[in-house]
């Protein structure tokens, strides 16, 4: 049984008739559409630093958001008091976006039967707290035993169980229980006066045993050590435009920033994106096919259905270089006279939904990764990134490398210091001259921010070569 049903709907006697009554107030005569979104989120995190597990925290957040939509306008109110009268007053506040009109008769639909992409099981209660603490200690010991240069180790294990229920005036009624766990390791190594950091981690929509009962945590721990070690010998990088080869997996943050945000429906409906009016146009080299796929089982960016109750899909954004479609929520899909794509997401009940990405990645190409590197006379090979940002209006985007190497005469040479790369979204993918056959998705640690709302997402790509992009090195 869904947590919302037992903890909220049953407890506060909110049956379909009462929900219909609330929605009929939120969707009075001058309103096109209304929805109600219940959420109950249980989350926890455990953190080890200085060799001891010194932080443990747990949090419960529950509430309900009511939205009234008329054309491109939204009224919105939320509350964490689930009494019927309080919800009616929230509905009254929400509908003030339009002049008052008579209440419409609303019927709550049948519950949606949508395929589930993850198990409805809370990760938090699955394992006793003392075992989580022991696990973190074990990983810490492993790291410290491996390298005497370790100056600091910070390891965290976090989990949440997010239960939602959404009902709307289009007849959608859907329950979902969303588990999410995340494990991360950060290591600082010291050599002489120099300190450098390495970090790694992973997660997904499953229980803690995927991490605790497998060797994966050791793999992440050693990966963090390896990166810190590489960075200890990293040299200053040259500044300016050059050829850059991006490694597979997490460097797919390139796609998220360079084109992902620019293809979100709201910006294109308002025509504030550098990609507005480009459907059917060539925006990338013909080797590039890019999708946003919310349907991959147990992945961090996946959802059985989005926060408006629409089933997620695998949406092709760019096919062989040609722009195919945007990512939509209900409001923007309707205004653009197209269908929703399962991308309507919200951070929680206290925020309005918007078009957001799920798992965004590029399909594999034909080249061996080694062939790609051998083709570069002079350039950079960047394999790990710490994040990125975009200005969707002029298309400028950045992403920041945390592990990179110089390529000289077709061979990877020394490590170079982390640096920011800057490019122009609608231009940069036209400069992709080789796409590898080694598609990899990231390990499940990505979080995307937009308008102050954070949501978990995934990225991925094969190795790829960009002929010309500006690199923020310090050397001239």
């Amino acid at each position, binding site marked *: 049984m869904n947590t919302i049903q037992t903890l909220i709907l049953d407890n506060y006697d909110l049956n379909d008739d009462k929900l219909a009554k609330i929605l009929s107030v939120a969707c009075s005569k001058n309103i096109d559409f209304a929805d109600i979104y219940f959420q109950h989120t249980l989350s926890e995190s455990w953190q080890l630093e200085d060799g001891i597990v010194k932080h443990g925290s747990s949090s419960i957040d529950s509430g309900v958001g009511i939205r009234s939509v008329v054309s491109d306008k939204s009224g*919105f109110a939320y509350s964490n008091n689930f009494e019927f009268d309080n919800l009616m007053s929230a509905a009254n506040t929400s509908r003030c976006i339009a002049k008052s009109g008579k209440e419409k008769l609303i019927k709550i639909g049948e519950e949606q039967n949508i395929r589930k992409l993850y198990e409805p099981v809370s990760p938090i209660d699955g394992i006793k707290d003392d075992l989580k603490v022991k696990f973190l200690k074990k990983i810490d010991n492993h790291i410290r035993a491996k390298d005497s240069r370790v100056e600091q180790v910070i390891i965290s294990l976090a989990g949440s169980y997010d239960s939602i229920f959404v009902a709307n005036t289009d007849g959608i009624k859907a329950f979902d229980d969303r588990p999410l766990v995340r494990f991360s390791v950060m290591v*600082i190594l010291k050599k002489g006066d120099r300190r450098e950091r390495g970090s790694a981690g992973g997660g997904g929509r499953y229980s803690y045993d995927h991490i605790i009962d497998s060797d994966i945590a050791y793999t992440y721990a050693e990966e963090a050590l390896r990166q810190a070690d590489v960075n200890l010998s990293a040299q200053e990088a040259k500044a300016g435009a050059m050829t850059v080869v991006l490694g597979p997996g997490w460097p797919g943050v390139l796609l998220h920033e360079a084109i992902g945000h620019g293809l979100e429906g709201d910006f294109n409906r308002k025509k504030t994106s550098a990609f507005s009016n480009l459907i059917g146009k060539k925006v990338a080299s013909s080797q590039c096919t890019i999708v946003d796929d919310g349907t991959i089982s147990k992945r961090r960016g996946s959802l059985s259905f989005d926060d408006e109750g629409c089933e997620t899909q695998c949406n092709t954004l760019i096919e062989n270089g040609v722009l195919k479609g945007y990512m939509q929520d209900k409001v923007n899909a309707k205004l653009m006279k197209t269908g929703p794509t399962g991308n309507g997401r919200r951070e929680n009940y206290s925020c309005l939904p918007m078009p957001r990405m799920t798992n965004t990645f590029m399909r594999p190409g034909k080249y061996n990764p080694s062939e790609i590197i051998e083709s570069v006379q002079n350039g950079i090979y960047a394999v790990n990134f710490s994040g990125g940002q975009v200005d969707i*209006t002029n298309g*400028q985007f950045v992403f920041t490398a945390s592990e990179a190497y110089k390529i000289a005469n077709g061979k990877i040479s020394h490590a170079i210091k982390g640096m920011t790369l800057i490019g122009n979204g609608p231009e940069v993918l036209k400069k992709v001259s080789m796409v590898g056959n080694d598609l990899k998705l990231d390990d499940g640690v990505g979080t995307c921010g937009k308008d102050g709302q954070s949501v978990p997402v995934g990225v991925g790509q094969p190795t790829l070569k960009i002929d010309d992009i500006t690199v923020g090195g*310090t050397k001239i």
Partner: protein
Amino acid sequence: MTSNTPDADKYKNLIQNLLSKLKTDYQYVFSLSLSDGFTVTSRSKSVESIEHHQDTGLAVAVYNNYKKGTASTNNLSLESIQKTIEKAEYISTNTQQDECQGLPESNYTKNDWTDLGIYYPEKLDINEIIDKTIECESEAFSFDNRITNSEGSTFSYSNQKNIILNSNGAYGSYKSTDYSLSCIALAEQDKLMERDYWYSSTRDLDSIENAKDIGRIAARRAVSRLGAKTIKTRACPVLFSPEMAQSIISNFLGAIDGSSIYKKSSFLLNKLEETIFPNFLNIREEPLLEGGPATRPYDIDGVLTCKKDIISKGILKTYLLDTYSSRKLKMECTGNGSLTNIIIDTDRSLTKNIISTMEDGIFITDMMGSGANTLTGDYSRGAFGYLIKDGEIKHPVTEITVASNLLKMFKNIVALGDDIDIRGRIRTGSILIKDITIGGTK
């Protein structure tokens, strides 16, 4: 929805009652925050969204024989509060002992705080607010016919109350209000678009900048970005606008935060009493600045905040320490479980119109990305700005990177502008720094 604002006194009494019944060998801290308000956005000359906010949150921290557990909830029913306490107690039985954990022993708050000059609640008429946002956006459109689109104008109002209680007898509460009005304008020329914004943010409604001025400045900034060119890679002096200077100072403050220091993850480790900035530069904290955007009487642990010199004549005088990190580092707590208002100042006079003093260089007004590494000080970010030649702006520049090392950047500061931005917690004018690498196209 603002009619049923929870009564803070009710919760104070409730928590005091609970405290008297809790385990005497444990220590407890209760932090409560209550807020309500709304956000209105208008776009294309009519209202686009009205969002009403009402949030409550209670965080409970428990120390049990130097072991810490925390739990939080947004449900303030007695049953839920009791469950939250039990959860925090339970977690504290599983975390590990750390002798630096525990309540502050001295300098903690003991009363309600009023007269901070940060609480000016108003009964607002939503229709007047809508009109204000429409007026703001309309002014942006009428500024220049190259303003072809907008992301609208947004007004937001929030009324907060913060309460802290602990089992050592600390008690504090204060109220604050925040008002803001902003506008994002889009300009277009030769099928290329640029966006820019402007905003005002204050504690009282009367001080908020005029709606028309905000719209006009947003428009002027967006139009000034049109026709941006790429440039060649170079090393040159860079003038950072007040907003960008704030982000650089914020990197400095992050690096002297107690938690960065005891975790040895700062490039300013072991640098107390060393010269970090040029000798004409001072940085101080003023927690009780009247009307200040980050004014608060006590920090997150309930320790009284205090006025202090952080940088004096270029020398680092203190780290920013909360209760825990001060014990960890065996130093005095500085009440910096929270960071308040920071003022950048100089013994010399502030420079008027720095651009006119520059022979060549770049004026940076926007930066992107997370390329400030506070472990090594390495700095590399994407940027937008303007090329300066012979004391004048020549043209906007795009697709550039700004790279250096923060330690070197701090030492290379050559002038502070008099164009002080008082909206953010870090009060500074523009900052001129020599010898920064600008990455551009070939």
